[in-house]
């Protein structure tokens, strides 16, 4: 066993994990080599010093703080997994608002003018299978004229 090999065995030797053959090889080297003996002593002192480091106690309110942190984390997690927690992008909101506005515009201004403006006339008298007796429904103007002609009648 040379110096380098001897030093590789220090940990196993001090922890009693070296087999008998190796132990005697190392010990016979140590008997002859003062440098390795000194090194082993330093190695052993180092291990003893580290093992001598005492356990450091946690602060007294540690458990309470753990509970607070856990509660915060669980609350945050519940919030994150809630379907209402997802943010809707601004662009999407704008688009939805625009669609609603256009729909309102169509309903309030365009549909009544189509219904009552008279501009719309069927191009031909086409037979509509869904209409009563296969005839087209009267337009808005015709309906109004018919109602006005009937005495005492009102259009609701």
């Amino acid at each position: 066993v040379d110096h380098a090999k001897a030093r590789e065995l220090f940990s196993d030797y001090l922890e009693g994990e070296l087999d008998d053959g190796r132990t005697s090889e190392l010990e016979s080297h140590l008997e002859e080599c003062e440098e390795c003996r000194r090194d082993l002593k330093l190695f052993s002192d180092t291990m003893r010093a580290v093992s001598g480091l005492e356990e450091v106690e946690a602060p007294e309110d540690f458990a309470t703080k753990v509970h607070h942190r856990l509660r915060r984390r669980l609350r945050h997690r519940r919030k994150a997994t809630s379907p209402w927690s997802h943010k809707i992008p601004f662009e999407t909101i704008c688009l939805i608002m625009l669609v609603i506005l256009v729909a309102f515009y169509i309903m309030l201004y365009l549909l009544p003018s189509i219904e009552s403006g008279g501009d719309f006339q069927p191009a031909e008298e086409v037979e509509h299978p869904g209409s009563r007796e296969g005839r087209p429904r009267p337009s808005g103007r015709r309906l109004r004229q018919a109602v006005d002609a009937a005495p005492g009648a009102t259009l609701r």
Partner: protein
Amino acid sequence: VDPSEERKLVKRLKQGDSRAFDLVVKEFQNKIFSLIYRMMGNAQEAEDLAQDVFVTLYTSIDGFREESKLGTWLYRIAVNHCRNRMKYLGRRKESQKRSLDQATERRLSGEKSAGNPRLQAHLHRPDEMAQGRQLEKILQRELAALDGDQRTLIVLRDVQGLTYQEIVEVVDLPLGTVKSRLHRARMTLKEKISEYL
């Protein structure tokens, strides 16, 4: 903890029993805090990380397959938290730490050259020195200067006193690798503190 008792405890934890969680915190808080303190060298950091370890235990207990002891699993969580924190701090505070180390070095070498009688007395009596605050500070500083893996192994084996089998389960490395890295870590530490022994 008795293995059958531990199985019951884990079952209760998996059911979300807060009393079982309290028991685990009480049982392991000092061990986990101490491990992290020795790894990070800072009490504030240790408290913060140790709290996170127990929160992780509660939120990830369903993933615990009971192939190791609960304590070993907790150590594993703690070591992973420390590694992540070290990486983060390493990136963020590398230059800051270097200057702090240099300042500490200067202060310590100044004390030594000035012939601080207390320290000088300890220098010739390693057994007393091992119990002294001064050596503890030096050790803590030199532990912190070790490479993360080396520090983990020394703390687990020499400070916390885990068996090799437990260390293998915590760090997820083969036994041979654990032993050789641990030996190198001890050698490195010996080189660093030999002048104080």
